[in-house]
């Protein structure tokens, strides 16, 4: 299966902000943040269809999100996951001794994961600390 390496940035968006203020367990938040924006050229290279799930893996973790055509143009080579729970599964905590993690500008590999399920915010966070219980 194809796999490409992209430079990842994670930043704010109004969709994320609006949904977050309704609550992070709100479905809007899931829709707004569990996505990865990438250039159609890169999608092609990775063998990814738009609106299908991909696995994004960085030096410190991986997450399943939905690949979408950018809502704000992203050039080839760059990928964007909106700030939030899903992005932070792959954000490296290294700070260059400044206190601020590497939220933008870290390498990720992206590969199709059509069959995989996108986890909810709560499942990701609680799961990471051993508190997640299936309903």
């Amino acid at each position, binding site marked *: 299966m194809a796999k490409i390496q992209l*430079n990842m*940035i*994670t*930043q*704010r*968006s*109004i969709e994320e*902000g*609006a949904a977050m*203020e*309704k*609550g*992070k*367990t709100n479905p809007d938040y899931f829709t707004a943040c569990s996505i990865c924006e990438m250039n159609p050229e890169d999608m092609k290279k990775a063998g990814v269809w738009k609106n299908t799930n991909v696995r994004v893996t960085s030096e*410190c*973790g991986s997450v399943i999100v939905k690949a979408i055509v*950018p809502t*704000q*143009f*992203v*050039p080839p080579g*760059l990928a*964007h996951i909106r*700030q*939030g*729970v899903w992005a*932070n*599964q792959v*954000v*490296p*905590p290294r*700070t*260059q*001794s*400044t*206190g*601020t*993690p*590497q*939220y*933008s*500008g870290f390498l990720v590999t992206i590969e199709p994961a059509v069959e995989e399920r996108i986890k909810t*915010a*709560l499942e*990701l*966070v*609680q799961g*990471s*600390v051993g*508190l997640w*219980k299936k309903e």
Partner: protein
Amino acid sequence: MPKLITQVGCPYCGSSCDDLEVLVSDDNKTVLEVRNACIIGNNIFLHANDPTRPKLPRMRQPDGSMKEISYKEAIDWTAKTLIAAKKPLIYGFGSTNCEGMSAVGRVAEKAGAVLDNCASICHGPSFLAIFDNGYPSCTLGEAKNRADCVVFWGCNPMHAHPRHTSRYSLFPRGFFTQKGQMQRKVICVDPRETDTAKLADVHFMLDQGHDYDLFDAFRTVLRGHDIPDIVAGIKREKIVEAIEIMKKSRFVMIFFGMGCTHTDGRNHNVDIAISLTRDLNTHTKASIMAMRGHYNIAGPGQVWSWQFGFPYCIDLSKGTHAHMNPGETSSIDLAMRDEIDCFVNVGTDAGAHFPIEAVKHLKKHPFITIDPNFCMASEISDLHIPVRIAGVDEPGVVYRMDNVPIQFKAVIDGLPGVPSDEELFDMVYERMCELTQTEPVWLAAKAHRKYPSSAVN
């Protein structure tokens, strides 16, 4: 009769708009309508109506479930946990008023804690740059009334500060900018073609992470030297043209955001932006401003600077003096280096906004969340204490992104029995003093309270 409250401050982004109009029910309990706000501001006020808002603290039980407990128990547990910890970390304050930030100063000092705020993962590098290079800035009214060249560098106000462009930076007709947008040249620097970039006259779509190189090129051109044909993916002619635009302007306003502070080089991207602003001042008037994220995230920087001398990452564990050095005393580094043994998350959601690796480290120790709502942090906490929502059911002073203090109002009554951040911290402090048999130091704090302690429990 519903009441219309005007000139209400919005507790969302750093624009801290104070021109909202909120229609509330006769009994002061429900927000009916919000006018003038952006979609996000709207949601904040309406979310306060949510009947499922927590009204009591919840403590995690051995089986992993959460059980409601009284405020008295929660305060006692918090006080004891803070006293027992060798080095607790108190972090957050993205959505807290200054009264709360001032109150937590006492708690942190007593607890020998590290006091940090969301700037740590956000505009912290901007502070580092300010330490190194200063901050030639202005209030937002100056931008509105004078700026005829506006630069958005690594920031996207159309998304993160939805009304910034209409209230301050781009569209408004100011005293010396009567033609509004027509009179402003807009330059945007961003590796994506963001919705802000689409509004710009010139968009530099630079290679991600090479802001420093591009700034260096700007400065080199400004000093009359030559630069290579392409810098950071941008052609020399375009850089020279932008410098000409800036030099010809009467007032250059540079806004910068996470695009500078979250990427390689961190503080130095801002550092050199400040140098550029300074250089521009020999040709024309220029100012620079950090696009602070939350409505009062400039607040802890102010309050803690006057209390401890530092805006963030304040290590109070040494007893005799405060120490600050981000990279060492910053939340993420402390977490990753296992340098703390208790975490208090206040008015933010570290669970959602910290890299998950850091969350895992923090969760090794007692984890307390103080926040009006359920959030990711509250759902992994050992203890969640709800408080009132600053700017909605709790008034107070907040600092806008330009460090102008704005006195926010409360539009509805708080949930009965739920304290403000300030009251909660004061009660925790009082309890800590009781437990350690020491005299509390109140200064004007108690007299300063907007109403007598709403005597929870």
